[in-house]
């Protein structure tokens, strides 16, 4: 090869690297879709687990049914939100696959963001209604406007990132504010209900110390008291066995509660991981490199493991 030919090849290589090709965003969209499926099955596992727990205290079963229904409704909102996440991811993958830039693409991404926000129950206001909108809605409205004003695809995705993170935060906040307190109340009522069933034994054991001392003294003075002491000891042993059964039930309820809380926390973390994967996608578009969704996929695997754990308890 002549020197001129080598130089031409070098220049071509540099130019080719500079232009590069857009990454395949399908793995991101696929991982997001898998996340949505995992969230849906998590909700089913949680409601089943709550229903089982409620059956431990028959007098309260009706109340638990209502609680499970309320939790189901709250979870349905979460499923809707995460399906919105999957739909948004799919739309972004399409946009990247099309490889176009400009006003139309920016509008598509902005519209997808609006649709995602609506699945998290954030109504993006028209500018005139900004005064009555929530902080999140106002923030997203402004950010979407920035996204729609961008013309280069990498800018469009980079500008979408703050909006994506805000939506992920809203989802995590909703889990802390609504789902976790609901699970905590259910757990406390389950424990209260279990304890109620053993209250008489508990009070007997609590009051037995004084009586036992009296009976022992009596038995020392009078051999006839030995029989009475033996009978009392048998009653106490029976009550203690009953309390052991109670404590086992409470331990089981506590383990199940912890697993449920762990699952809800993992779901919030998964949303944050999804937002991080979106950031990586935007960077991959800018750097013309492969998208890394390993962490998001790993999160889904962890979710599935937790669902199994909740079901097993």
């Amino acid at each position, binding site marked *: 090869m002549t020197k001129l030919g080598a130089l031409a090849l070098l220049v071509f290589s540099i130019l080719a690297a500079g232009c590069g090709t857009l990454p395949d965003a399908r793995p991101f969209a696929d991982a997001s879709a898998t996340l949505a499926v995992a969230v849906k099955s998590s909700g089913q596992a949680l409601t089943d687990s709550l229903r089982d727990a409620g059956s431990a205290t028959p007098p309260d079963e009706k*109340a638990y049914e209502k609680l499970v229904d309320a939790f189901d409704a709250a979870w349905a909102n979460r499923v809707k939100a995460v399906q919105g996440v999957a739909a948004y991811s799919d739309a972004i993958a399409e946009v990247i696959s099309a490889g176009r830039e400009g006003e139309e693409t920016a509008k598509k991404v902005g519209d997808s963001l609006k649709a995602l926000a609506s699945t998290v129950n954030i109504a993006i206001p028209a500018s005139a209604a900004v005064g009555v909108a929530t902080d999140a809605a106002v923030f997203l409205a402004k950010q979407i406007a920035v996204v729609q004003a961008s013309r280069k695809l990498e800018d469009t995705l980079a500008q979408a990132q703050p909006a994506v993170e805000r939506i992920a935060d809203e989802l995590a906040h909703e889990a802390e504010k609504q789902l976790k307190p609901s699970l905590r*109340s259910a757990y*406390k009522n389950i424990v209260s209900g279990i304890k109620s069933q053993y*209250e008489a034994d508990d009070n007997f054991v*609590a009051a037995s110390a004084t009586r036992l001392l009296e009976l022992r003294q009596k038995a020392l003075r009078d051999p006839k008291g030995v029989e009475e002491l033996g009978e009392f000891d048998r009653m106490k042993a029976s009550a203690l066995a009953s309390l052991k059964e109670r404590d086992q039930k409470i331990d089981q309820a506590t383990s199940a509660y912890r697993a449920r809380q762990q699952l809800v926390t993992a779901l919030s973390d998964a949303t944050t991981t999804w937002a991080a994967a979106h950031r990586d996608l935007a960077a991959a578009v800018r750097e013309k490199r492969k998208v890394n969704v390993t962490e998001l996929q790993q999160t889904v695997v962890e979710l599935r493991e937790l669902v199994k754990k909740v079901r097993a308890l």
Partner: protein
Amino acid sequence: MTLNDLDSIDFDELESTQDWVKMLNDLLGLAESAQASNKRELLADTLDEFADHSSSDDLGTITKLDAAARKAARALRRDDIAARIGELQAASADFQAAVKELDASTSGLKKEAAKLRAEKVTAAVSSLTDTIGSLKNLSQVLETADGDKIAAAIKDAVQSAQKLRTLLEKPA
């Protein structure tokens, strides 16, 4: 008691069944003012703590008080307002029924004690009457010089005994 006092309750200070009755009465009285979910949760937790800590030789009463406390605790954790109010009313009714039974048995015990006291007073009055009679007889048969002094002393004793009997015979 107010909702702000809930954190500082020391259940170990309560001893008698009446102490526990008063505490539960105070706690149930706060249910209406506990509207915010964090306040309801705090009151519910305190009611469960009440049942965890309560203790009395009167097993029947304390177990009923605990049941009412736990029922109210679970009611306060319900999101459904109608269900919550209904269950709180039921818990309150259970508490009132337990207190009524306790009052009835306490009043029964008081009556029993009063009856025993009356019987003892009657026995004492009867015994005093006998003593007075005996002393009077004795004073009539004393004939020595010292007998006059003894008779006077007996007279004083009789008067004191009569005074005591009069006092005992007065209705309480």
